[in-house]
């Protein structure tokens, strides 16, 4: 094995491998392989971007939420997402990348974020579907990340997961209220779940055989389960909840498989996934440009804050 320049005697790598082997946390001051650092920066910043962009599809209904209680819950939720974005940027910063740089990658369209947020929210029921399905899938993805080998990331995930499961419950409640409501409300809920179900399942990423990066991430204790394992876990969670809701999951192939001890489910249309990933989703351009516009419109505010801070520092230094 070639020893990298910043670890001439290989002691850093040995310690890193010990940490992984003992399921301990790697901390910012520890030596770590460049590829590990790079992978984490990419993954954490994409996760942060997803939180930031994810504010929009739900933010779309804050001004139209149909009751004050729902309005309050929705505002709090979207605001939590901004908060998650902030923790995650902080976690990524411990790996030596600036928040400005990450944010710039986002608003110039060079960074990825979860494709799911390129779908639109034409109806109120989508607030339920996002909570139940999208946050639900996110939790399945994220709970194992609480044990991620990189300390700041794992700790951020602990806090985020707690809030996400709260959000999922709220989404479930929105759908439950609709399903207990009028014919129109029930139809609204079902139509929305029909739209979000497959995209939510695709949030776990392509089938394992098409997911080449996963193996390394698992070796590094970043990823703990394969895409397909997580997807199965999610479907197993959804089916009984859908029964409680009285909602039909739009996949006729779903049925309990006693042998596997899991629910079987149908093939997904991965073309759609790759379409959205390639920027042809319903709202790709809109999402990025909205945040960019907000950022550009706010440039004078940030400049003023900097100028004021400089003046204060100058005054107190004098």
């Amino acid at each position, binding site marked *: 094995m070639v020893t990298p320049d910043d670890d001439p005697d290989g002691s850093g790598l040995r310690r890193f491998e010990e940490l992984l082997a003992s399921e301990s946390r790697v901390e910012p001051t520890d030596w770590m392989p460049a590829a590990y650092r790079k992978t984490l920066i990419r993954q954490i910043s994409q996760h942060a971007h997803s939180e930031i962009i994810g*504010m929009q599809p739900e933010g779309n209904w804050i*001004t139209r939420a149909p009751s004050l209680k729902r*309005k309050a819950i929705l505002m709090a939720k979207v605001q939590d997402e901004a908060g998650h974005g902030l923790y995650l940027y902080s976690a990524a910063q411990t790996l030596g990348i600036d928040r400005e740089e990450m944010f710039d990658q986002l608003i110039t369209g060079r960074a990825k974020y979860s494709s799911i947020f390129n779908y639109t929210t034409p109806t109120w029921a989508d607030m339920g579907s996002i909570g139940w399905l999208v946050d639900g899938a996110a939790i399945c993805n994220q709970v194992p990340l609480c044990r991620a080998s990189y300390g700041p990331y794992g700790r951020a995930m602990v806090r985020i997961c707690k809030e996400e499961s709260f959000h999922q419950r709220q989404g479930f409640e*929105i759908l439950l209220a609709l399903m207990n*409501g009028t014919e129109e409300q029930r139809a609204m809920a079902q139509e929305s779940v029909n739209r979000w179900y497959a995209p939510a399942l695709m949030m776990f990423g392509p089938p394992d055989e098409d997911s080449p990066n996963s193996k390394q991430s698992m070796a590094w204790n970043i990823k703990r389960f394969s895409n397909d394992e997580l997807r199965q876990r999610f479907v197993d969670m959804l089916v009984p909840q859908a029964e409680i809701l009285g909602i039909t999951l739009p996949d006729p192939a779903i049925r309990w498989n006693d042998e596997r001890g899991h629910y079987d489910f149908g093939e997904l249309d991965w073309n759609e996934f790759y379409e959205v990933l390639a920027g042809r989703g319903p709202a790709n351009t809109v999402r990025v440009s909205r945040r960019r516009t907000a950022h550009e419109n706010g440039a004078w505010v940030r400049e003023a804050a900097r100028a*004021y801070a400089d003046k204060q520092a100058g005054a107190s230094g004098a």
Partner: protein
Amino acid sequence: SEPVARYALGLGDDALVLAHRLGEWIANAPELEEDVALGNIGLDLLGHARSFLTYAGSAWGRSEDDLAYFRGESDYRNRQLFEQPSGDFAHTIARQLFASAYFDALYRALQRSTDPTLAAIAAKATKEVDYHLDHSVQWLLRLGLGTAESHRRMQRGVDAMWPFVGELFSPEPEADAGGALEGVAVDPESLRAAFDELVPRLITDAGLAVPTIPFAWGGGREGRHTEALGPMLAEMQVLARAHPGVTW
């Protein structure tokens, strides 16, 4: 009693309308920290609104949502400052500065109301409004003293919101109702001194000019509103009104 309910309705509408306006900023703020901060302030105000409206509605057998979603523009009783469009960030800060200074003085006084519900809502709100005021003051200073551009915009913001300051201290319409609000309600006139002591000084400290622009007529408490409220309510109420009588 009816006059107390109507008094609570006005206070609830003030908070509700401003909370809605702040909600417009979410995912649009100049930086993420402000998405969070403006969202927090909006959430606090929404909480106050819900308490006041629930209390008002209890006198009439109406829920907070009946009141929020099924009254038209001329039945809204908020003072006009709160419905003003958010404009740029400086407009929002100016609106929030005036609003928070008013709420701060109001809720401090309302804690001593002989109506225990109003006193309790005010006691809780006072702590929150304290933070809101501090947030506005910090931004007033940053923008007023930051750059030439931010100074210009902050002055514009202060000037744009100033005409609606006068109405904050106009009498509550229910105050005439045979003394029913005696000891219950705060006389808005009594809040003016604290406001006048604080706000012009803050504006001056931020290197800005205290406007000499006359105050507008006002009349929000009588249901007279500026042209900003109608379109705002159209959006806010659209879904609830499309499905009257249902539960969400």
